C-alpha cells in the first residue's frame, strides 16, 4: 500500500513561476530556463510511489534535485505543480495543498527527518535533543524524557544522555539524529544523506544499524544518497536523478543489470556487484549448455542428470557426486569436500562466491524445484569486471 505518492511534481526556486512553468512544458532545459527567467528548476515532473516498509533511495550527484524532492515531502520545499500525497491514517494528504495546521500535524505525527549535518541543537543535551520533536507533539515533559531515553538506548547512547552534542563524535551525533527521528513514531522517515558526513567505517556500521532497526520497526523510508553502493545496500527501490529529473526508477539489481542511460551506467561501473547481483542474473542458463537426452554437460568430466527439468544427480569422472542443498543457514565449512552445492537461483553473489571458495565444483541453481542453470568461475569474473550490464547493449 502506498504511503508516499509523488505525482508529476515540479519544484522551482524563484519568483517567475508563471513564465517558468510553460517553458518547462515546452521542453527547455534547466540551463536555458535560468538564463531566460532567472528561476532554478529543482525538480521536473517527478513520479514515485513508495509502499509501506520500503526503503526508497533517491540517487544522484549533487545538484540533481534529490534533496530538493525529499524536502518537498515534509513541505520544507514548496511544490510548484503536482501532488505529493502522504498517508495520514486512512486518507492521503496532499502536502502541496495543505494548510499550516495540517502541515504541522503531518510533520509531528507522520513524517520525520534526519539531516546530513545532524542539525542537533547545540544548547540542548543529547536527551533533550531526542525529546525535541516529542515536545512539538505536545507530550508532557516527564513522559517525553522517558521516551527519549528509550530511543537513546535503542541506538546505544543512553550513557551519553546528559552530554552536549559537541562532546560526541560524528557517528554518535547522527545516532542521536536517528533517535530523534525514530522517537516521533512516524510512518515515514526522510533521510537526507544522513551518513555522507561520516567516515567509511562508521558509515557502513550505521547502515547496518539502520537495516537492523528497519527490520524491527518497518518504517517507510525515503533516503537520499550520492553513493550507489550505499543505495544498493539499503534500498529496496532506487530512483536515479539527473538535472532535476528522475531518469530511472527500479529495483537495485535491475539498476545494475540494465542501466537506462550512460549516466546511470557510469554510476554502476564503480559499484561492487557482490552486494547486488543474484544467481539468476549471473548464471549460465541450462539451455545454453550442451545436452543429450537427460544429460547436461558441464565439462569434460562432469554432467547433470535431469528428468523433466528436475535434477536427479550430478555425475563426475568417478561416478555420482554427493550434493547438498544450500540455505542461508548452511555452514559452508561443515560440508565435506568434493560436494556439489545446489542453491536457489535467488542466491546473492556474495554467498555464491563464498561457496565457490570452499567447493571446487560449479554451483547448480534451482527455481521452483526446476534446475535452471549453473554458476561457473566465468560467470563470477564476468560480473566482477563489470561486463554484466554491457551484455544487453552488446547484444543489441
Amino acid at each position, binding site marked *: 500500500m502506498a504511503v508516499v505518492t509523488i505525482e508529476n511534481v515540479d519544484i522551482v526556486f524563484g519568483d517567475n513561476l508563471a513564465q517558468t512553468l510553460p517553458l518547462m512544458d515546452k521542453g527547455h532545459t534547466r540551463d536555458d530556463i535560468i538564463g531566460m527567467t532567472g528561476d532554478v528548476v529543482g525538480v521536473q515532473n517527478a513520479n514515485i510511489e513508495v509502499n509501506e516498509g520500503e526503503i526508497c533511495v533517491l540517487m544522484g550527484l549533487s545538484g540533481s534535485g534529490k534533496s530538493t524532492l525529499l*524536502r518537498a515531502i*515534509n513541505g*520544507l520545499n514548496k511544490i510548484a505543480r503536482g501532488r505529493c500525497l502522504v498517508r495520514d491514517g486512512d486518507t492521503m494528504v496532499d502536502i502541496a495543498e495543505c494548510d499550516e495546521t495540517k502541515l*504541522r*500535524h503531518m*510533520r*509531528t505525527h507522520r*513524517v*520525520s*527527518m534526519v*539531516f546530513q*549535518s545532524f*542539525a*542537533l*541543537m*547545540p*544548547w*540542548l543535551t543529547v536527551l533533550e535533543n531526542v525529546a*525535541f*520533536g516529542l*515536545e*512539538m*507533539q505536545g507530550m508532557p515533559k516527564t513522559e517525553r524524557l522517558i521516551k527519549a531515553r528509550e530511543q537513546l538506548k535503542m541506538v546505544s547512547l543512553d550513557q551519553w544522555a546528559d552530554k552536549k552534542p559537541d562532546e560526541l563524535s560524528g557517528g554518535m551525533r547522527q545516532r542521536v539524529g536517528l533517535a*530523534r527521528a525514530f522517537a*516521533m513514531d512516524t510512518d515515514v522517515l*526522510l533521510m537526507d544523506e544522513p551518513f555522507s558526513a561520516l567516515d567509511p567505517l562508521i558509515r557502513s556500521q550505521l547502515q547496518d544499524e539502520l537495516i537492523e532497526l528497519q527490520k524491527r520497526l518497518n518504517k517507510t523510508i525515503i533516503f537520499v544518497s550520492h553513493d550507489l553502493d550505499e543505495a544498493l545496500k539499503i534500498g529496496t527501490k532506487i530512483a536515479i536523478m539527473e538535472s532535476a529529473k528522475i531518469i530511472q526508477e527500479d529495483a537495485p539489481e535491475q539498476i545494475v543489470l540494465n542501466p537506462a542511460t550512460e549516466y546511470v551506467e557510469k554510476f554502476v561501473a564503480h559499484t561492487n556487484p557482490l552486494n547486488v547481483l543474484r544467481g539468476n542474473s549471473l548464471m549460465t542458463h541450462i539451455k545454453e549448455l550442451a545436452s543429450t537426452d537427460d544429460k547436461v554437460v558441464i565439462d569434460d568430466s562432469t554432467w547433470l542428470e535431469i528428468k523433466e527439468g528436475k535434477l536427479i544427480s550430478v555425475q563426475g569422472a568417478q561416478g555420482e557426486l554427493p550434493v547438498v542443498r544450500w540455505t542461508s543457514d548452511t555452514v559452508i565449512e561443515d560440508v565435506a569436500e568434493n560436494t556439489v552445492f545446489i542453491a536457489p537461483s535467488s542466491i546473492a553473489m556474495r554467498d555464491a562466491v563464498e561457496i565457490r571458495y570452499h567447493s571446487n565444483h560449479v554451483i547448480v541453481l534451482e527455481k521452483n524445484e526446476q534446475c535452471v542453470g549453473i554458476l561457473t568461475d566465468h560467470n563470477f569474473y564476468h560480473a566482477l569486471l563489470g561486463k554484466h550490464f554491457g551484455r544487453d547493449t552488446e547484444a543489441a
Partner: protein
Amino acid sequence: MNWLTDNKIPLGAWMENFVDWLVTAASGFFDLVSITLETMIITMVDAIDALHPFAVIAIILVGVWFLHRSLGLLVFITAALLLIINMGYWVETIQTLVLVVSATAISVLIGVPIGIAAAHRPWLYTILRPILDLMQTIPTFVYLIPTLILFGLGYVPGLISTIIFAIAAPIRLTYLGVSKVPSELIEAGLAFGCTKSKLLYKVELPAAMPNIMAGVTQCIMLSLSMVVIAALVGADGLGKPVVRALNTVNISQGFEAGIAIVLVAIMLDRICKSPSAKKEG
C-alpha cells in the same frame, strides 16, 4: 558661492520647530514619562542607599559567586567597593549603577524585539541601519539639548540620552544572532513541527543567545561611558564630581572620581562577560 550661503537651508530651524511642536503638543506625555522614570530611579537608589553598604556588598558578592564561582573576582570586587567607600563615592556609585542598569534594561527590552523583527524582515533592517548609525555617530551633546527641553533636568534626560546611544548594540547583535542561525537548525525545527513562535523561542533565540548576551554586555559598557555626559544634564552619580572637578580645575577630585568610574567599569565588565563567553565555549 554667495548665492549658496545667502540661501541657507534652515535645517536647524526645522528641528527647533519640531522640538517646539513636540513640547506644546505632547508635553503631557513627556512629563508623564519623565516623572515615572525619575520616581523609579530615585526609589531604587533610596532603597539601596537605605541598606548598610556592607550588606549591599554582601548581596553583590553572593550574586557574583553564583554566576562565576571565582574567588579572585570576589576579592577584586570587595577591594574595589571598599576603596570606593573609602574615597567617599558610595552613594554616587549606587546612583551610577542604577542608571546604567535601568538604561540597559530598557535598551534590551526595546532593542531585542526590534532586532528579532529586523532579522525576520530584511526591509526593516535596511531602514533601521542608517538610523542606528545616526544614533551612534551624532555627537551626544546634540541630542542632549532636545532631551533636556523635553524631559527637564535630572536623571531622565541622562537616561534617555544613554538609551539613544546604547540601544544600537542590542539591536545590532540580536539581528546578527537571529539572522545567523544555521539554516539546518531552522529546517530541523520546522521538520519536527515548530510553529512560528515555537521556532523563535525553541530554536532561534537559544541559538542567538551568545550574540544577544554580547549585545547586553556591550550595552552596559556603552551606558557606563555616558555617565559623565549624563551628569551635564543633572543626572546624579559618579559623573557629577568629574564635571564639578573640571569646572573648578580640581585635579585630586577629578582623579578620585575617575578611579571610581574605572573600578565600576571593570567590575561590570568582569561580571557580565564570562557567562556569555562560557555559553559560547
